[in-house]
């Protein structure tokens, strides 16, 4: 049971007198759900009171009435805000985790050394190791966009090319993080756990996909600035729901590009150092 509505015995007499009270007890175990329940009850009672007022059975309506509109999601469809978040999670998992595993395995087995003695250059190893996952991630991206459109009926109001560009940058970043972690720990078990912690969980909890970034304490908010998922979520939400808003696209893409460049440089340097 989610709630109990208690209507006192002299209710209709007190409605006429204008001081009726309805008591509502909600189950607070899930605070989010409790608040939604409370809002619904308030809304329904408000509509009922307005109708009473219109029929002249009670005093006039409230002095000020709030009429709210939800832009970009008029019907308040929750898949509109879930789908962009899902895209982030899928891309994070494919990009980060699989690469972390593949390099860590080579380190663990010592086969990277045997690769080294072949005439393949370290950059070529890096490219050959990451390219399949890059392609795989883009495949995942296509699947996400298609299911957003046809399964969840979420509109894509911006340009698909902007979305693709941003997603490619984000995958590059995830690949880079996976590579760096795996070359640091050189152990598949630890690499997978660490990548999960550094990429997936923050993308889930700290990216602004579920929780409002502005309401987080300052320290946690600073942490979110270091997370690529934060910028990617902002991009996805805007391009999917609002359209090509350049004032959102430009700064977020720039940050993603800078992060991708830094990580590419970083993993290149690490590979050189570890191999030579």
């Amino acid at each position, binding site marked *: 049971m989610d709630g109990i509505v208690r209507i006192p015995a002299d209710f209709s007499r007190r409605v006429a007198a204008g001081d009726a009270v309805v*008591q509502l007890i909600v*189950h607070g175990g899930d605070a989010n759900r409790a608040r939604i329940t409370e809002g619904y*009850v308030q809304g329904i009672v408000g509509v009922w009171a307005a109708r009473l007022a219109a029929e002249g059975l009670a005093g006039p309506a409230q002095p*000020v009435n709030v009429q709210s509109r939800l832009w970009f999601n008029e019907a308040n469809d929750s898949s509109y805000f879930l789908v962009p978040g899902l895209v982030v999670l899928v891309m994070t998992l494919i990009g980060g985790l699989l690469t972390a595993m593949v390099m860590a395995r080579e380190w663990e087995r010592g086969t990277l050394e045997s690769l080294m003695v072949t005439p393949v250059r370290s950059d070529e190893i890096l490219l050959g190791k990451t390219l399949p996952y890059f392609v795989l991630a883009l495949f995942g991206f296509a699947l996400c966009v298609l299911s957003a459109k046809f399964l969840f009926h979420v509109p894509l109001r911006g340009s698909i090319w902007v979305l693709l560009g941003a997603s490619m940058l984000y995958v590059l970043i995830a690949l880079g993080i996976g590579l760096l972690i795996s070359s640091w720990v050189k152990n598949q078990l630890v690499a997978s756990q660490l990548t999960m912690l550094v990429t997936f969980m923050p993308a*889930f909890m700290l990216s602004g996909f579920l929780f409002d970034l502005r309401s987080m304490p300052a320290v946690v908010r600073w942490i979110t600035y270091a997370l690529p998922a934060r910028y990617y979520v902002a991009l996805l939400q805007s391009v999917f729901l609002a359209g090509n808003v350049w004032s*959102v696209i430009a700064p977020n893409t720039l940050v993603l590009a800078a992060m991708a460049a830094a990580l590419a440089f970083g993993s290149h340097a690490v590979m050189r150092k570890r191999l030579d």
Partner: protein
Amino acid sequence: MLGTLLRILALTRKELLAVLKDPRSRMSLLIPPVVQALIFGYAATYDLNHVTYAALDRDHTAASRQLLAGLDGSGVFERVADLQRASDVESLIDSRGALLIVQIDEQFERRLLSGRGADVQLIADGRNSNTAGTAASYVSSIVQQFNAAWGRDHGYAPPPVQVVARAWYNPNLETRWFMIPGMIGTLTLIQTMMLTAMSVAREREQGTFDQLLVTPFRPFEIMAGKALPSLVVGTIQAGGVLLVAQLWFRIPFAGSYLTLYAGLLLFLLAAVGIGLLLSAVAATMQQAMLYSMLLIMPFSLLSGLTTPISSMPRAVQFLTSINPLRYAIDITRRVYLEGAGLDLLVSDLWPLALIAALTLAAASWMFSHRMQ
């Protein structure tokens, strides 16, 4: 019987040594749940404490200013702009400059004074419809305060019906109170399942699994030896998150630890069972990883941690019934906040027991099947 037990314990010891001896591996299992509980405990809240809004006040009267002052004085709303034209609204919302626009039309005060009532338009950035909805409800409650004050001063009749709401078990409806107990299950599931799935896959990949098979261990004993260490690690992790909830966030614990741990143990058994089943299917660690993450994503999204299960589409609700995390979150919340006893948790406990029994049986069948 005793021999079996000793062999299982020996395997458990070997497994724990393998996992905990490497300092990095040890750190990656013990530190993260606590750190995550701390960070996410602060981050994971639907309560808003900073909402940016812009005012489009076309009335410029004492009444309109009084209404806006109510917003400014709430401590939650920050007015980032005073708009002059309606055409400015779009660009401000688009660029995420403000989450809300409060629009007050001309004749606002005059309509109020004449007793006809006035409208206030609220436009919210719905890109995160959750946040927007919460912010809009905050505005509504401030407008209600304004209504009460205005009505009292200007002879409006009070509203015919007032709703007085009370929340049991979490009087202030703080998100943190239900989020952090829910994390006990979420944070432990991920690592416990992955640890189990990968530990068998690693042995297989390194070829040591075959060596294990030529020892006098029976398949069942090998499986138990793989399951126990993960159970131990999971229990310790759950304890860490529980400590954070109680000592750091000071969320009052209403139930009994025995009940909580009984439920968690059953949950961990289900998680380990799924992990073992995955490892029986996977040939390499990468595959084990891939399978576990394919499960972890729907498990964590469809668990009721962040969105109530009752508001999901019916087909999805049905799918969540095979999600062990769903039951674990329900158990931890009910024991933690309501002090529920085992008798009230039967509807959560038997599905967990069923999942654990099915996955463990299937895994042990596959183990012995593959080995011969």
